[in-house]
């Protein structure tokens, strides 16, 4: 193992830790996953040979470790649904025929917000506020880019349950951003 390779890999630890913490939300588990990924990378230096991007490669290894950790914790913990919003939570926005009771307010041209650090912080806080199970499915989809079949498989959910979680995540984030940014 070359000293340079080791140093380069180690230098990516903070970024990988941020990535894993976004996914797992539990700092300790995130640290364990990153450590496992770095060790696997160092052991696998030969298989990195010739690839373009160390960070991309390392992130790929890390993703597997994260998914493994999620699978383990799914088995250990029971999501008793207490922190999950019931089916009726977003139904309350619609009348009995399914029409908006009140149109969502227009955010105008919101892309300017993307340049603002405080907006990104607000978005992160909104993500952190999602119920655990919802967050898990949503992060696998949006952050890790898994398709829904893969998410269902990893989390042991029916396809319907998956769609519902992703829907709730988007509804919740929309509401959160509206409340904490666009309607301040």
């Amino acid at each position: 193992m070359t000293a340079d390779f080791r140093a380069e890999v180690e230098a990516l630890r903070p970024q990988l830790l941020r990535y894993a913490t976004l996914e797992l939300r539990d700092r300790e588990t995130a640290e364990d996953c990153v450590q496992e990924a770095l060790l696997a990378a160092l052991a696998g230096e030969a298989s990195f040979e010739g690839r373009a991007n160390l960070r991309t490669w390392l992130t790929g290894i890390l993703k597997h470790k994260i998914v493994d950790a999620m699978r383990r914790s799914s088995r250990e913990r029971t999501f008793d649904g207490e922190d999950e919003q019931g089916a009726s939570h977003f139904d309350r926005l619609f009348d009995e025929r399914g029409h908006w009771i009140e149109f969502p307010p227009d955010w105008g041209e919101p892309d300017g917000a993307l340049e603002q650090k405080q907006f990104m912080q607000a978005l992160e806080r909104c993500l952190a506020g999602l119920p655990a199970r919802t967050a898990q499915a949503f992060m696998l989809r949006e952050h890790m880019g898994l398709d829904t079949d893969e998410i269902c498989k990893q989390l042991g959910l029916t396809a319907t349950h998956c769609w519902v979680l992703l829907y709730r995540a988007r509804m919740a984030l929309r509401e959160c951003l509206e409340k904490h940014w666009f309607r301040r």
Partner: protein
Amino acid sequence: MNLSCKEATRLMSAAQDRELSIGERAALKVHLAVCKGCRIFDDQMHFLRRALRRLFGQE
């Protein structure tokens, strides 16, 4: 197939995760043509995805 707004919001979310069928796309298009609330929601869903991509450095 006439969509309610509630159904439309579910389809707009699903569209971010899978390809909608021809029937679903047609029904959604018709609904959006006549429903300002859902047009606003549609924009917000697209913005949300752009924002997340920016947050995760995926651009």
